[in-house]
């Protein structure tokens, strides 16, 4: 049974943890949340990310959201910004999102097979 009292216990635990791991958010994970992203399962991806971040105890990751970026056919899209390097993962699902957390965020390995060269090139072009 979950109750509001449980939340107080969780808060106390997190406050203790925070003293140990006082860290800035230095990794950003962005999920596209346009109509196309939502219809393709972006909401489920966000929930899988949250659960895996909790599992892995990662406190330095910020989840942000953006609207349609024009790659509707590749939704759900996930963009990871780590050490100023951006990686765009395409056609992500819940299992892939969890794997991105474990491989990319924990071990630092980019999963190239799930990235799309066209999308990457476009994103870099846009920033120029």
């Amino acid at each position: 049974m979950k109750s509001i009292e449980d939340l107080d216990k969780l808060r106390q635990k997190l406050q203790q943890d925070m003293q140990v791991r006082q860290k800035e958010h230095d990794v950003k994970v962005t999920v596209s949340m346009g109509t196309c992203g939502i219809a393709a399962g972006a909401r489920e991806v966000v929930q899988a990310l949250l659960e895996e971040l909790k599992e892995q105890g990662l406190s330095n990751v910020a989840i942000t959201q953006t609207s349609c970026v024009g790659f509707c056919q590749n939704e759900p899209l996930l963009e990871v910004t780590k050490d100023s390097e951006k990686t765009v993962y395409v056609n992500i699902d819940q299992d892939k999102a969890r794997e991105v957390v474990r491989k990319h965020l924990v071990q630092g390995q980019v999963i190239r097979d799930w990235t799309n060269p066209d999308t990457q090139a476009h994103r870099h072009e846009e920033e120029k």
Partner: protein
Amino acid sequence: MEDLSQHILDIAFNSIEAGATELTVMIQEDPNHNLFQFKVLDNGRGITPEEIPLILDPFYTTKKCKRVGIGVPLLREAVDRCGGRFEIKPSPLGRGTAVIATFPYHHLDRVPLGDITGTIITLIAGQPHLDLAYHHRRNNSCFDFSAGALRAQLQDIPLHTPEVLVWLKDYLNQKIAELRRETSEEH
């Protein structure tokens, strides 16, 4: 869209893009009177009467990077499919916009509410400062949730901390299941 909660998330994102800092999601389920209704109210920049017919057109969008805007037309189609009623109007709270979708509860083509908890969690995860209120009524019982109240209770721990949101997901799922259980025993 597979469930109405996805439409709610999509409409809520329109609110956020319209600069909303406050968002109220209201759900009313009344099977005895064949009524299912949701409202999304915001305090964003609002909508003019001239804009209302435009946003029902899938080829109208305010965004420059794309040429279609299908979120609102998709919802209207989901409403029309079962002879419901769809309204967009200035919010009764003063500033902002209200989107109201009303369905016959028992219509075979009425999409289920689905994962409303996922919708709330997703909104909070990406919009940590959004003042979100959720009001869910089923028959004569209701469940209310406010992000502001939780923030106050959490003190210096941010509401969008993954551990907190995973807790919140279980909490909301349980409360909404209780609401359904209680009210199904009433008749």
